[in-house]
């Protein structure tokens, strides 16, 4: 069975600092990987997705993620965060079935 582990429940960081949100998955087959963001009082929004090809995926708002098959990881990074990046971030995986499995989320808090 698939599962997703987001290693940090909360990540505080100062504005303009780099950030990495960690995600590990388990699956016995090839997977598709996603990062979603949920801003306060808004619905989930796709940041980026890995389907195949290049392991470095670029998304919206300056975020990128790298798929590492050997480490079964899909960490999200941004070189310089803004106050407006404060939100909850969810990593998700699907193995080609209809079910998408989400992690528990990481709350990113950007401080001035």
């Amino acid at each position, binding site marked *: 069975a698939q599962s997703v582990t987001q290693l940090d429940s909360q990540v505080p960081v100062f504005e303009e600092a780099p950030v990495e949100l960690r995600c590990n998955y388990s699956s016995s087959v090839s997977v598709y990987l996603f990062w979603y963001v949920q801003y306060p009082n*808004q619905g*989930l929004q796709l940041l980026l997705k890995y389907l195949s090809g290049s392991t470095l995926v670029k998304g919206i708002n300056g975020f990128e993620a790298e798929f590492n098959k050997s480490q079964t990881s899909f960490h999200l990074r941004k070189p310089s965060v803004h106050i407006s990046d404060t939100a909850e971030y*969810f990593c998700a995986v699907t193995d080609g*079935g*209809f079910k998408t499995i*989400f992690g*528990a989320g990481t709350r990113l808090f950007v401080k001035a």
Partner: protein
Amino acid sequence: GAGVSQTPSNKVTEKGKYVELRCDPISGHTALYWYRQSLGQGPEFLIYFQGTGAADDSGLPNDRFFAVRPEGSVSTLKIQRTERGDSAVYLCASSPGGATPLTDTQYFGPGTRLTVL
């Protein structure tokens, strides 16, 4: 165009009552998903519709939960004999569907917060 909408935004009910939660997907999207998000958790898959049919309902927790999509657009999630443990935010998402629904971007609604007293 309009995004995914869900009504009501909040629903408070008493234990044992019946509730219906509605989802209006983006026009033209054939794939529709329901998720449940408990406090401090990520969304948990409930059911997936392709058109009018439920292609995967393996996430429905028990037979008190049922969902329909009779005309392939609006969907209703129905919960009978509600329990306090059903309290959560219920999310709906839609995607274009077609040949590759599994890799489509899902567009989420704002959710319905259900509280069972």
